[in-house]
C-alpha cells in the first residue's frame, strides 16, 4: 500500500493516512457515547487543541483533544497515560 492510489475512494481521497487516525476517531465517538456526553464536549476540546497549535497535523490535535476529554471526564489520569505511552 503506497500512495493515495492504493485504496481508491468514491471521490478520490483516502479517509485516513494511517490506521491510528481511524482508531482515535472511533475512540472519541465511544467515549462521548459511553460517558453520556454530547459531541460538542469533544468538539470544544478539538477547537482548543487546533487553536493551541494551528499547524499541528489534524489527527494529532484530535488525539490531544481526546486525551483532554478522557482526563477531564475522570476516565484515566495523565500519569496512567504517560506511563503507558512510555
Amino acid at each position, binding site marked *: 500500500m503506497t500512495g493515495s492510489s492504493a*485504496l481508491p*475512494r*468514491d*471521490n*478520490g*481521497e483516502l*479517509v*485516513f493516512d*494511517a*490506521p*491510528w487516525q*481511524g*482508531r*482515535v*476517531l*472511533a*475512540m472519541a*465517538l*465511544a*467515549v462521548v457515547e*459511553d*460517558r453520556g456526553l454530547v*459531541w*460538542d464536549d469533544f*468538539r470544544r476540546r*478539538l*477547537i482548543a487543541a*487546533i*487553536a493551541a497549535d*494551528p*499547524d499541528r*497535523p*489534524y*489527527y*494529532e490535535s484530535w*488525539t490531544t483533544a*481526546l*486525551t483532554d476529554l*478522557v482526563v477531564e471526564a475522570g*476516565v*484515566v489520569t495523565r500519569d*496512567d*497515560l504517560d506511563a*503507558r*505511552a*512510555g
Partner: protein
Amino acid sequence: MSDDHGHNPRPLSDVERRAQALEELLTEKGIVSGEFIDRVVEAFARDIGPMNGAKVVARAWVDPGYRQRLLADGSAAVAELGFGGPEGDHIVAVENTPEVHNVVVCTLCSCYPWPVLGLPPTWYKSPPYRSRMVREPRALLAEMGCEVPEDVEIRVWDSSAEVRYLVLPERPAATDGVGEAELAALVSRDAMIGVARP
C-alpha cells in the same frame, strides 16, 4: 507498547504511542472495544461517504417534493434515504441558484455532515482554507478551479456543532430524462462543499 524496540522496522511515533496507550486504557475500562473501532473505521472506509450525499442531491433534482423537504429539514430528508448517525443531527441544505453560490467551511475545526459526506478532506481542515474562505471566497474558489461569475453572490456558511451544511448544487444543463442513479454519479464531493460545480 514494545514495538519500538526490535521487530517493527519503523519506530512508532510519539502520537502513535499515545493513541495506543489511550486505546489500551479505554479498552481495559470497558469503554471501547477493538470490534467497535474496527466497525467505525470500516464504515468510514466503505459505507459512509460522498456517494450518500450524491444520492440525496440526485433525489432532490428529480423529486420536487423531496427537494422541499430537504431544504426544510435536512436531517429528516437525509434520514428518509437511510443516512444518519454521528454529526448528522442538524444538517441544513443550502441551494445553489443562478444568482447564489453557496460554499461551506468550518472556521474553528472541522465540522462536516458525516452521514452524507463522510470525513472531510485534508484541505477542508487546513488553516488556509478555514481562514481564507471567509475573507476572500471568490479568490480562493477561483484558485481551487471554481470560477464564480462576478454577478453571482457567494454565501459562505460556517459549520458548527449546531449546524452542518450541505450544498445542493444546481442540476447540470441538458440532463432532462437522465435517471436518478446517473445523476448521482455527476455529483462530486467538492460540489456538495461548494468548491466545485457538478
